[in-house]
């Protein structure tokens, strides 16, 4: 059965105030051992979600944060970054039936 939007979802607009309830941001896992602190990911991130702390890339705690575009994953020369979770909205801007994340497949 395809997913649908309920009336309750359509009426409420999510807010970044209620992080984790309304909006689940994208999650990238940064391998601190592999990171050499080149800072390329901080420059390419559109959402300012990655910052350098003690010459290592870290997730920025402030808003706004990751929209899971994968630019940092692609640019990292040491393959230290991995995309774990995708951004999700829960109400008005909810994405319908997006499936699981996968790299390009060969059919």
């Amino acid at each position: 059965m395809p997913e649908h939007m309920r009336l309750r979802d359509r009426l409420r607009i999510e807010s970044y105030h209620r992080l984790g309830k309304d909006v689940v941001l994208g999650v990238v896992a940064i391998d601190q051992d592999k990171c050499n602190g080149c800072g390329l990911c901080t420059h390419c991130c559109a959402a300012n979600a990655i910052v350098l702390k003690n010459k290592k890339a870290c997730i920025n705690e402030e808003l706004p944060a990751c929209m899971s575009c994968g630019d940092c994953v692609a640019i990292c020369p040491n393959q230290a970054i991995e995309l774990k979770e995708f951004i999700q909205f829960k109400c008005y801007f909810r994405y319908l039936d997006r499936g699981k994340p996968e790299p390009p497949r060969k059919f």
Partner: protein
Amino acid sequence: MAEQIKAANESVIEPEITIQQPAPGADFNPVEDVIYRRRSVRFYKKKQVPEYVVRRMLEAARFAPSAGNGQTWKFIVVRNQQMIKEMTQDVVKLFKLQMKFTDYITKPNKLKEWYAKFLQRVANNSFHPIPFAGIKMIAEEKLGLWHGAPTVILIMADKRTPGDPTLDVGIAGQNLVLAAHSYGLGTCWVSFCATPLSLKLKWRKKLGIRYPYKLVTSVAVGYPRGVPDGYVPRETTAIDWFEEDGTFKVVY
């Protein structure tokens, strides 16, 4: 006119290429590879892109499909660094003004929140939470508009052409972008500039944003720092599938 068309047709050289359907599970061909590896680039070298390369990209855009062969696009190439700087400043100024009325995230404010959510409802594409956060970051100058790209291509659409001009412009733009990535360049779509530049009289005059044209989007072009292109995971959006034998399935 007829002679001109005949001459143009004769000048077209048909290259002898063998187009093959791939075997199941075969490796990506060069076109697919460029499509899959394309990533938005937000960190550029200062080195300018040669003029002939930009001309070559625009040539690829010229042969995009469009509704009723309307060829609705009009491109403006901006390579004047001073002009790019001024445009960025003006966009930042306008976004700052907008954030005065709608920024309810930095300082909680009920009235601003109500107004922002009203905007999100009436113009839900431009005020979606993601571009909304982007506007906030541009206003705070944490995010560059064109990320220091040496060449900016503004794309305008002719409002009078058949079908959906903005869609046709998107198709042409993607041709341009894929061509650029196949030359090792980096590109980034930037539509934040469209409304602010269209509102400012100075840029309306200078860029010729007047009837029948409207500014739709822009593409930043330049040499990337690092190697940003590569494969990443993306969501496998659900595909509804009505099969020949009458069955229905959802594939991912």
